């Protein structure tokens, strides 16, 4: 009797398993295809403002970092969640991003007035504006989502992404990017003026200046 039941059930079970496997395969392939094919529409790019610039970028800082955000979820606030947490299990939601970005530093030459530049004979007197961070760039293509569990709102994601900019600026400060940008700007201006035939270029800093005697060939 038992043997007969097994004989009857087995073909059905095999068929069921095969169907489940085929279904799982199709589902998996479908999900992969869906991830690949999610494309945006080709919408126009609208120019909303045009601004003339005179920014001399002379130094660039590059960094990569890991950004992590954790928050409790519905399960972690339950008794079971608390128990799991007590046992050392991580039940919170996580969002881990890898970001790379750049800080571009230099001078805004638009800040210079007529009084900041003087040419007397073969000497140029230049008072350069203070160096500054001109751009802090972390674009969507600079982010990689390394781990993501739970549901994250747009505001939570962009909030975490924004911290990358703050950290980039801290890194740029640490490496003395502004002073390097200033030195680079002096080199660039010197090259231009020497090429134009000036022999001496004097930079006036607050409290000091550098004199660069360059022979005219």
């Amino acid at each position, binding site marked *: 009797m038992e043997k007969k039941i097994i004989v009857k059930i087995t073909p059905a079970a095999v068929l069921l398993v095969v169907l489940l496997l085929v279904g799982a395969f199709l*589902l998996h392939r*479908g999900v992969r295809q*869906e*991830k690949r094919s*999610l*494309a*945006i*529409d*080709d*919408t126009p*790019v*609208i*120019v*909303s403002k*045009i*601004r*003339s*610039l*005179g*920014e*001399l*970028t*002379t*130094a*660039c*800082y*590059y*960094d990569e970092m890991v950004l992590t955000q954790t928050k409790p979820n519905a399960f972690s606030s339950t008794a079971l969640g608390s128990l799991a947490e007590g046992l050392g299990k991580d039940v919170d939601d996580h969002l881990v*991003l890898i970001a790379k970005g750049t800080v571009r530093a*230099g001078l805004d030459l638009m800040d210079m007035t007529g009084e900041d*530049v003087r*040419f007397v004979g073969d000497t140029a007197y230049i008072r350069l504006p203070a160096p500054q961070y001109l*751009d802090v*760039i*972390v*674009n*969507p*293509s600079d982010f990689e*989502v390394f781990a*993501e569990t739970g*549901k*994250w709102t*747009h505001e939570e*994601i*962009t909030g975490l*992404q*924004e911290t*990358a900019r703050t950290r980039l600026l801290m*890194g740029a400060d640490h*490496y003395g*990017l502004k002073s*390097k940008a200033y030195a*680079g700007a002096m080199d*660039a201006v010197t*090259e*231009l003026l*020497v*090429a*134009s*035939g000036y022999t001496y270029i004097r930079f006036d800093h607050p409290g000091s200046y550098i004199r660069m005697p360059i022979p005219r060939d």
Partner: protein
Amino acid sequence: MRPLLHTVPLLLAVLLVLSGCNGRAAVEDTVQREIEAITAMKQLSLVEYRVSKIVKAEDEGAWYKIGDRKILLSCTAYLKAGIDLATFGPDDVDVDWSGKRVSVTIPHATLLSLDMPASEIREEYDHVTMFRHSFTAEERNALLRQGEKQIRGSVPSLGILEKADENARRFFESVFQKMGFETVEVSFR
């Protein structure tokens, strides 16, 4: 037992040497990192365009999925164009002090930077039906990457490079006139 007693100090010595090597490698990595972290450059940004774009995606899903998902994000990007002065040298300036003439040859303007700040990306609309899952951070970022790519691709048609060339000509004319030159010729390579 004796060979083992001899082997242990030898192994320890090898480990010490290896750990020493690792330490040096770490220091070298740090130095290398410091060198690579900052790059010198000479770029003159002459115009900035602020552009906006709607990133729109509709995901009806595969045949076995019930319902759909839609998302609408608006974003702003700042494009800067100008001259890369890395290739600009003394040979590009021809000075005639007696005639108060100068001719300068500069490279054509290129796109120097594209900044699409996260703080200026807004979610305008997000609709997900019951049997579908929400847009993940990875999916959102993938959509925004495509938006960034489309903005970058639109640069030739925006007129930003022509505007930067025009500003470059004005900039160099102004600089050399300030130096006392009466005739300034600016040409592009």
